């Protein structure tokens, strides 16, 4: 419905939509790898996040190129590009958090709560993908977007507890403490950006209507 309403060259648009779906799927894979790596302190799996980010970057470039080569009506192109950039920013945050993790000795006292945040991030990506699919099917996004907001609020609740626990950890080396703070900040910001991406799908959906 979405495609039929908006396009001249259906194949080109279908390809872009498929790539957007793949882009989010890769993000979800990245969040899953991150979550499992954090839960089991598996550095090899954490390195996988960087590889996935590179794959996602290639897809992002393809999507933006295809959009500006003529897929979709012109007034939609900046909005679709912005959505793709938001998803890419989530991946950047995740990758940076992974790099921080690999550079420090992560305190076990924070592992359980941090893993929970990582799990919720992974679930949110799944819901973002469902939201994109619903939009392309011309469905109402209200319930999907509420689900994403619910996840975000839960991460927010955990964030304060996590920060409080982190303050109790004695830090002997400035850079170690700095990287831990960066790690926690990035980990807990992923959900904010996913929520922004979901809101932007809402904007695109409104424009289409």
């Amino acid at each position: 419905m979405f495609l039929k309403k908006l396009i001249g060259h259906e194949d080109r648009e279908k390809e872009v939509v498929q790539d957007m779906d793949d882009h989010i799927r890769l993000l979800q894979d990245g969040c899953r790898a991150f979550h499992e790596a954090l839960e089991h302190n598996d550095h090899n799996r954490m390195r996988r996040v960087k590889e996935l980010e590179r794959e996602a970057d290639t897809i992002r470039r393809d999507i933006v190129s295809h959009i500006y080569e003529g897929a979709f009506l012109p007034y939609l192109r900046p909005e679709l590009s912005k959505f793709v950039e938001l998803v890419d920013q989530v991946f950047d945050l995740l990758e940076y958090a992974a790099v921080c993790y690999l550079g420090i000795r992560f305190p076990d006292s924070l592992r359980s709560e941090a893993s929970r945040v990582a799990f919720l991030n992974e679930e949110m990506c799944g819901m973002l993908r469902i939201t994109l699919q619903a939009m392309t099917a011309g469905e109402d996004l209200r319930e999907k977007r509420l689900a994403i907001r619910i996840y975000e609020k839960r991460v927010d609740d955990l964030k304060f507890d996590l920060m409080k626990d982190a303050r109790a950890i004695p830090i002997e080396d400035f850079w170690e403490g700095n990287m831990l703070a960066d790690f926690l900040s990035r980990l807990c910001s992923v959900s904010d950006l996913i929520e922004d991406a979901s809101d932007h799908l809402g904007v695109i959906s409104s424009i289409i209507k």
Partner: protein
Amino acid sequence: MKVYEFMTTRLESVDSGKSVYDAVEKMVDRRIRSLLVRFPGSDLEDGVITARDVVYKVLAQGKDPQKVKVSEIASRPISCVSKDLPLRDAAELMERDGVARLFACDGSRIVGVLSMMDAMAAMLILRARGEHVS
């Protein structure tokens, strides 16, 4: 979706020997409506105190919350379910037993609590995923 995916893992508790006023202070500070009451022995011996208990059993009866012990008004035993229980089953249990929260257990250890708000949020997510039962 299982209970452990949506339960709150940070359990706020109060010792059974503390006063109701101690519990109330904690509830106000943490902005929560209930506390796990820790009794001696295993986790399964624990109870729960809610804002409702404080109002109905203490304040409304003109009792002094500083003089009433938490153990006197705590509800026991707590409703405990496996953390792996499907959420739908947990919601049915809440309805059947008329309770607003279920404690999630891993063996005899309490590992989380699922409140009515948690259950509602989880159900809304199931709906959004298209997994709800109509």
